[in-house]
């Protein structure tokens, strides 16, 4: 081996040895970023999407706004308010209003919703007659009749919830001819 070559090899090995000492291990950093991106995506998109109330078979529609997680009344075999069973749907359908001027009112549901509305008013420092701007979603079974749905809507409005929305399953649009 020539002398020039030996010197060149020595120089190169010194240079690469220097690189080896200073190199940065980026693998843990990449792992951490993967975790952050994963949890950021799941909490911003999935976390805000409205879950389907168990036991409710929703009708479907191809239009409408994306339903976000809201305070929800579920109407399946049981009536649920924020995922807590309040009464059976058969009881709700057969219940008689205690207010002659409001024949559609369901008293048990009204008391439950009124209690929640009062809590929200207290938290927001609103007077009892102030308008409550708080959205309420209804997830109803597709086999339900309108006379029953109208009783739930009217009871919710009487309790103070004026911003009602019907949450249904999203269906992909049917392609035209």
């Amino acid at each position, binding site marked *: 081996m020539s002398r020039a070559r030996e010197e060149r090899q020595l120089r*190169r090995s010194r240079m690469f040895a220097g690189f080896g000492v200073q190199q940065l291990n980026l693998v843990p950093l990449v*792992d951490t970023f993967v975790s952050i991106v994963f949890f950021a995506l799941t909490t911003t998109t999935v976390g805000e999407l*409205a879950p389907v109330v168990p036991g409710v078979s929703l009708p479907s529609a191809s239009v409408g706004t994306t339903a976000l997680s809201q305070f929800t009344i579920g109407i399946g075999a049981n009536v649920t308010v924020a995922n807590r069973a309040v009464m059976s749907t058969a009881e709700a359908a057969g219940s008689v209003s205690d207010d002659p001027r409001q024949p559609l009112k369901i008293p048990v549901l009204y008391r439950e919703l009124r209690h929640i509305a009062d809590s929200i008013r207290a938290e927001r420092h609103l007077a009892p007659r102030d308008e409550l701007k708080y959205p309420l979603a209804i997830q109803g079974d597709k086999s339900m009749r*309108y006379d029953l749905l109208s009783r739930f809507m009217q009871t919710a409005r009487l309790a103070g919830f004026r911003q009602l929305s019907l949450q249904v*399953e999203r269906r992909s649009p049917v392609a035209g001819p």
Partner: protein
Amino acid sequence: MASTYFHRTRLRREERKATMHQGGLNLVPLVDILTSIVFFSLLTYAGAALAALTSFDLTLPPTVVENPADLQKLKSEKELLNLLLVVRLYDDRIEIEHSADGGYRKRVGGVEGAFLDEFEKEMTAIRARYPQNKDVLVLPADGMNYETIVHVLERLKLARYSGISLGTRSREAK
């Protein structure tokens, strides 16, 4: 044997590789992290189905303002309804009524399939004729199926009505 240019460069590359210790990317920590994510995702799964839902926001049905003091409360003229458009739903037909031009009434002979197409076409025409009006009051019959009502609401959205309200007929106390 005299060394060729190819052999010399190959030898140099081998020397450099050995010096730099380029062993590739270590994927083991990444697999560990992904395993942790899957484990905790399964552990915290609440059991509630997360389907993509869509929402129909309902407005309150229009009311007649008789008290002048209530009229003052209206913030702008936009809140005044200049066309009362009503869709009555029955089990076997849809009736469209509005208050303009001395009154208008149209009957659609069904609530499914091609009849819904006809209904949507009619509502789109009314929307085009009265572009300032985005509100419609839907009055379903008591026995109407909820799914059918949703299909009608869907057609109203497709006809670009944004202020949809569901009304009920007046009735006596039970």
